[in-house]
């Protein structure tokens, strides 16, 4: 095989490998909330069911999240509703992970500047709002 066809074959293999990796990546990602890693799902909400924490989370939501997701979590423009089966079914740790990391390429900022406790309070608030599951 001459150099040129060999280079073409190598390029094709790399492209196919990349496509396969992306496909597996997407498949792997689709099973978790916003591509949260499996370790995120293992995290437990230290304030689960705590009404005081949820009240604090409500205040934090109004300060930080409502501007995009709406005062009633209904979503606005590109920011999705937070009252949905997707959010309800997400593990608390996955929601916490997504709030911490955001999705910087798609408009969701990282909220890591908020203390960990406050991010869990927001998770607690979202859980309390989604608990009814009446969408």
């Amino acid at each position, binding site marked *: 095989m001459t150099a040129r066809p060999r280079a073409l074959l190598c390029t094709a293999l790399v492209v196919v490998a990349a496509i396969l990796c992306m496909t597996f990546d997407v498949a792997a990602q689709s099973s978790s909330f916003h591509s949260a890693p499996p370790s995120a799902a293992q995290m437990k909400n230290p304030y689960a069911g705590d009404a*005081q*924490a949820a*009240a*604090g*989370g*409500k*205040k*934090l939501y109004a*300060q*930080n999240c*409502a*501007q*995009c997701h709406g005062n009633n979590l209904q979503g606005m*423009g590109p920011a999705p509703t937070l009252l949905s089966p997707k959010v309800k079914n997400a593990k608390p740790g996955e929601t916490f992970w997504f709030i*911490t*990391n*955001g*999705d*910087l*390429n*798609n*408009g*969701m*900022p*990282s*909220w*890591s*500047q*908020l*203390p*960990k*406790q*406050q991010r869990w*309070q927001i998770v607690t608030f979202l859980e309390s709002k989604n608990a009814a599951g009446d969408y």
Partner: protein
Amino acid sequence: MAAAVFLKTLFLFCLLWFALPAALAGERPYFITYDQTMEEPGNLDIELEGLTASPQDGDQFLSGVTEFEYGAKGWWTTEFYLDGQTTANQSTIFTGYRWENRFRLLMHEHIINPVFYVEYEDINGADKSLIEVVGFDSQYDGLVPNQEASRERQREIETKLILSSNVYGWNVAENFIAEKNVTGNPWEFGYAAAVSRPLSLLASPDECTLCRENFQAGVEFYGGLGTANKFTVHGTSQYVAPVLSWQVGNAVFKVSPTFGLTDASYRAMLRFGVQYEISGFRRKLEKLFR
């Protein structure tokens, strides 16, 4: 006539200020040091910062910087500054502008989060904002009268590597600064480092003004590191500055008494600032022109 225009502008500005919803989240109390926090996409943050000092052999001055910080993307924040100062017994002058851009290098949170910063500034020698200290910047630069100092033009490119971590409620940030005058002087170096923490890590359930979660306290260290020809701390300015911020509704107030640690430093300075964030600024602007 001019006064009427000024009053109208002020009125419109105030109207905008209070009419638009604002949100400020965990804003750091720092004046000099950057952490990994980027402006939320589409939001505009307006900040007024002041600095006052009384040099040993010079006139007291008050420097003012107005900053417009815009979140272009989740990973890209751009900021425009207008600088000015007033010196007792001399004059009040506009000293120039700066345009900075910050790019987050990693899309997810890590133990250390790097951000790349690049700025172009076109200021004159009378600028006393001291929003970065590099090379052999010293208090003696401020002794040159405004009329003479303002003739010196400083067109500079400044880069920073920002490293920042959030651990156990604390933020720890380090900035490494390299600045180059485009007219050909050697590279000048500097640094800034800071730690801060909210006074309470939990949010209280009720609305409150004086609750501890609305306060953040910390300390900043910054100074020059010489130039490419002479990399040293000898003969440079070095500062330590406790910082405190207080969030009240739509505003954040910041204050920082600053103390010089070397002969080249100002002995004491006071920094203060107020900032507002206009959330959904891009959306509102688009609506206006639709």
